[in-house]
């Protein structure tokens, strides 16, 4: 029931904001309503801790002989960190909204709160059916929002491609379901068949843009801070949560090293592009890919806690950085707490990562982690190109930093309390090496030209090398199209009736031969 209460708080607040927007567009207390709802939701998620684990199921679909698994949600040690991260992100977005140039009630506030509710439903989904439904809701929401915000044929096409890849990821989850049923398992997260495991990772990887490496998000969207951040991160969290449910028995497959290699390529590529991105917003898609890839690597190494830890790091450290739109030296330094959170050092947020050995892949993972952390340092300390609070009322000078501080506090808090990955010493040797490499990269960035930021218009969704791979698949599709058109033209042409009758006779003769 507590899950429903938290989600309802988000949805009801969103509804209230929409009603206010329609009937009282000048109401000055709309922001208070939004912040109040977000605070209540965050508090309610903390109350979950008193009862965890617990769950709730909706009435089962009928006929029950066909629909075995009901729509159900569960709060446990793996879903709670995500839930609290999402709730904190939504509250931080509302608190930092005071720094935006146009500070009035808009549909984006309601959208952010509704996304928060959907995000909670996604991370607490207790079986693949529930997750599929919430994914679909998130995908449709993102599609509509993006299509409303972009302009021009190319950008619109990018939005549809992003939607397509996420839908294909959902398709993979469905296929994993089919595999599970064929092996006799009742496909819920408790009894997933080992044969389905890698499909689950591939599904999450495809939705995140990690497996195979692609950029599912349009970098040209107008939705930058605020709603854009919630859309990116909640969507990512909803996919990452699946990694926590992958059974370790499924990782003994011969495909695991291949997936591991692909994930490391994605992490390194994401880290490299993130480090060299001209600013944090242009680099955000690479941040998501890079950290998500680290989460996938954790899952592939059989470390579900590590996968959750990286997912929370993506939201909390990334959230602090991307919501920070005002130049404030004190906040910039405070954000460096995020470096600790990303370091995997003892008692940090990610201390639970890399608990299982990475063997041959370890050096590459360390390099990818260091690139991402160094990029974070560079963007956190970047002095230029930010707004100012000068033109805003005095009270906003206090409120705005509290949003950023909230995200930083949550990082520290999650490292210490409340879930299975808290208070861990972890793989400290790995963490030390990654930290040393990070320091080296931070030192080298201004000194070596190759590490210097690239210009904004050079940050393209895919490099030529990856483009050629996709062109290869496009070529296969076009050849298949020509073949199918030839068949269709034959069947629909002048001799089509004769061809169809011939096929039919062949079909029947084959079948009757098979009969006893």
């Amino acid at each position: 029931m507590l899950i429903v209460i938290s989600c309802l708080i988000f949805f009801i607040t969103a509804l209230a904001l929409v009603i206010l927007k329609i009937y009282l567009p000048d109401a000055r207390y709309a922001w208070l309503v939004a912040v109040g709802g977000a605070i209540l939701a965050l508090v309610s998620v903390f109350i979950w801790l008193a009862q965890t684990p617990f769950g709730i199921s909706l009435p089962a679909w009928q006929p029950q002989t066909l629909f075995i698994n009901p729509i159900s949600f569960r709060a446990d040690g793996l879903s709670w960190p995500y839930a609290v991260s999402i709730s904190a992100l939504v509250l931080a977005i509302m608190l930092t909204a005071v720094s935006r140039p146009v500070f009035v009630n808009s549909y984006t506030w309601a959208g952010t709160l509704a996304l928060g509710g959907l995000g909670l439903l996604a991370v607490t989904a207790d079986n693949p059916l529930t997750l599929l439904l919430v994914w679909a809701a998130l995908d449709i929401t993102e599609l509509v929002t993006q299509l409303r915000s972009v302009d021009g044929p190319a950008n619109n096409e990018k939005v549809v491609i992003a939607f397509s890849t996420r839908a294909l990821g959902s398709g993979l989850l469905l296929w994993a379901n089919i595999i599970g049923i064929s092996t006799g398992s009742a496909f819920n997260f408790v009894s997933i068949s080992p044969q389905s495991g890698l499909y689950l990772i591939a599904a999450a990887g495809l939705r995140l843009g990690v497996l195979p490496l692609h950029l599912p998000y349009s970098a040209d969207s107008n939705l930058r801070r605020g709603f854009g951040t919630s859309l990116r991160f909640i969507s990512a969290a909803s996919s990452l949560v699946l990694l926590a449910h992958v059974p370790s028995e499924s990782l003994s497959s011969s495909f695991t090293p291949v997936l591991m290699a692909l994930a490391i390529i994605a992490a390194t590529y994401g880290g490299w592009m993130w480090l060299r991105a001209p600013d944090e917003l242009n680099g955000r898609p690479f941040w998501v890919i890079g950290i998500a890839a680290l989460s996938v690597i954790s899952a592939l190494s059989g470390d579900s806690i590590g996968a959750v830890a990286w997912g929370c790091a993506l939201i909390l450290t990334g959230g602090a950085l991307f919501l920070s739109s005002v130049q404030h030296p004190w906040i910039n330094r405070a954000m460096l707490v995020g470096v600790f959170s990303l370091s995997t050092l003892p008692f940090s947020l990610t201390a639970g990562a890399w608990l299982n050995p990475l063997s041959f892949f370890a050096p590459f993972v360390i390099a990818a982690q260091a690139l991402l952390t160094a990029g974070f340092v560079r963007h956190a300390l970047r002095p230029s190109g930010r707004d100012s609070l000068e033109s805003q009322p005095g009270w906003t000078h206090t409120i705005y930093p509290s949003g950023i501080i909230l995200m930083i506090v949550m990082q520290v808090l999650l490292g210490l309390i409340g879930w299975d990955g808290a208070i861990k010493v972890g793989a400290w040797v790995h963490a030390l090496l990654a930290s040393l490499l990070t320091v080296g990269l931070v030192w080298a960035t201004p000194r070596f030209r190759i590490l210097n930021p690239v210009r904004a218009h050079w940050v393209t969704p895919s490099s030529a090398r990856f483009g050629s791979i996709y062109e290869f698949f496009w070529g296969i599709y076009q050849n298949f199209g020509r073949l199918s058109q030839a068949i269709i033209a034959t069947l629909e042409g002048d001799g089509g009736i004769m061809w169809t009758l011939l096929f039919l006779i062949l079909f029947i003769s084959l079948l009757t031969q098979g009969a006893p």
Partner: protein
Amino acid sequence: MSAPVIWILIPLVAGALILFFVPERLSAIVGGAVATVLALVAMIFPIDTALLISTLSIKISASVQVFGRNFSLNTADGTLLVIIYGLAALWFFGTQASGIANRFVSLGLIIVALLTASIAVEPFLYAALLIEMAAMLVIPLLVPQYQKPGRGVIRFIIYQTLAMPFILFAGWMLTGVEASPGDIGLTTQAGAMLGMGFAFLLGIFPLYNWIPMLGKEASPYVTGFLLWALPTFTVIFALGFLDRYTWIRTSPQLSGAIQLAGVIMVASAGLFAATQKHIGRIMGYAAIAETGLLILAMGLRSAEIVNVTFLLLIPRGLELAVWALGLSVIKREAFSLQFSEIRGLARKYPVAVIAIILAHLSMTGFPLLAGFPPRLAIWQELASQSLVTSFWVFLGLLGLLVSAFRTLAVFVMAEEKTAWSWNESWIQAGMLTIGVIGLFILGLVPQVMQPFLSKLPALFEHLSQ
């Protein structure tokens, strides 16, 4: 009054009256109202059961004799009539928004009445004749006055006509099979004849090529109606065969053949749809894939055949209605439904485009939408029987999904600085919105169909055992 008079004769007469006496602007409302009333009567008054209202006792008798043939609708048929006339009402109300002439409503009512007669007639083999009559009545709808029929229309009527002798001949042979069930040769021949008949009726690969051709050359709304009505009743007719003849039901060869036919339809239609550049043809391929799923459901070696089949049939009516109505709105602007003509129309006709895309996604089995629960039920049954079959079905639906993405991409690729506007009429937007809401409701709470589904197995007693 008897049930066949209410649900066969009255719509027949109403259709004729609408054609001659009702003005065009009112025909949709009148036709829709007639269908709604018939659905409500079926829902409220049980057939062949006395209903006491105060001191008034009402009983609708089950059967009537016409020219020595018996038309019978039993208590169990009531639910089926609610579904049929309920969905028909949806189609007729949508006619006004689609902007097609009143011939559609009048002939549509007559077609539905004839098809209802096909499930009521005994001996049931006469159903083939009634289905043929209904198919012939579709022709005036498909071909505009004073125009030559297109190639698709001609193929449609050829294939539907070829089906009739095969089914009648199979029926004659089946009486022989019943008399001497040990005669394997006769059984095989009867099975093959029956298979040929249904292959023509349902448009099994490669006999479905008229469907995409119609999607291109005929009105989308009429094509959609045809693709809903004929396969729906043919499937019910086929379920009757399966229920009646034990050897058809229990033959593993026949069950395998039915599954194979279904899988080939789903896979081929999906893969062909993925390469199409005409959204009318894409709707045709989606309908073929859906029919393939219905055939696949009938071939399941499971006691859930009836449940799965009707779980597919109910959303199918809504999906096709929404899709066809959306295409009709778009066709008024674009004339041709080629990708090159519809580019960027999402900004001019947002409601129609949303409806088309959601109906399309629903037919691919996209979660949250009406088509998802029935497909999930099919996976549930199919995956435990054959993973290879499941893979091909999955591939076919993936092909349909790819065609949905391509359609969406074309619709939204408007030139820069194109403003969003709303060019649908209020009635079009209203009908499409109601349809879209229906898609979401059936996708999220499919148990709303349960009151109907729970009673349907009584229609096919042997299949549900």
